[in-house]
């Protein structure tokens, strides 16, 4: 019963918050609304740090959402909007930092990791090949013995 009540509360509360947002910001088209959602999803809240301004409830995020919306109404491009926030709050507010000398290592790390992985795999393969050719697993004597044993077994099986 308690679970049911909680569930219903959660449902009504979530519906309410969605209604609240669309009541505040009206958009001319679906596309514009999507653009707004994308923008606020990739801007980072300076106060709460690990949230984007879409998720954050802090007053500063609310102000930032307002500015994003107002600038969109004034016809600003995505770059202009992000740039205007970066000029006030710093590079920190971008979840995707620009590629420059400072962020190069950050961007290059995945490629470097893959490269190192490939080198390790290549090393292992080359080594095992080399080991295989340098020392054959069986001497010719042993091979002859095995052939003989197998032949005997096959004869036994067919008989």
């Amino acid at each position, binding site marked *: 019963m308690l679970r049911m009540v909680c569930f219903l509360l959660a449902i009504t509360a979530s519906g309410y918050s969605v209604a609240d947002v669309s009541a505040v910001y009206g958009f001319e088209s679906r596309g514009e609304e999507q653009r707004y959602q994308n923008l606020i999803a990739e801007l980072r809240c300076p106060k709460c740090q690990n949230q984007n301004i879409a998720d954050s409830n802090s007053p500063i995020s609310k102000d930032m959402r307002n500015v994003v919306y107002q600038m969109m109404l004034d016809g600003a491009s995505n770059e202009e909007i992000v740039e205007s926030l*970066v000029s*006030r709050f710093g590079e920190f507010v971008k979840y995707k930092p620009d590629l420059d000398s400072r962020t190069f290592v950050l961007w290059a790390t995945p490629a470097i990791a893959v490269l190192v992985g490939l080198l390790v795999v290549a090393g292992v393969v080359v080594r095992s090949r080399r080991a295989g050719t340098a020392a054959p697993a069986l001497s010719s004597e042993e091979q002859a013995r095995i052939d003989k044993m197998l032949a005997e077994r096959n004869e036994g099986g067919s008989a």
Partner: protein
Amino acid sequence: MKRLLLFLPLLVAVVVGVVLFAGIGKDPTKLDSALIGKQIPAFSLKDLKQPETTLDEGLFQGEITLLNVWGTWCPACRDEHDDLMKVAREKKVAIIGLNYKDNRDDALVWLDRLGDPYRTVIYDPKGTLGFDLGVYGAPETFVIDASGVVRYRHVGVVNDQVWEQILLPVINEARENG
């Protein structure tokens, strides 16, 4: 080769250790201001104490000032108030207040009761100048030089230690450089 591989864990531990050690003592919630080295943004807002007067960025021309962002809703601002009073009494630097997202009556009562360390207080009920300054949480304190350029931003409470070790050296340096 096998022997060298035995040192791999040690190498990894050293690298990870250096990276983690570099992070110790850094407070990730304190961000450098994007405005350092730039002119204070243009604004046109009322004076808190004289509602008929309109203030603008010309307020910061002519001498080094401390710009302190505060509000009566902010407990940490109450915490630093006595330290600001002390700085004001010692007259080391002029303090300009930015009353941020507050209402005038509450702010005036606060200054009346706790004392007024500010030469002038800019009244910014909607937080527009605060937003242009990149304020993300009061209290914040900016050092602004005589030509209106932002030299430093401190996020958090100003206490004796912050004043002596951070703000005063920045102010002195700004003075020396004219």
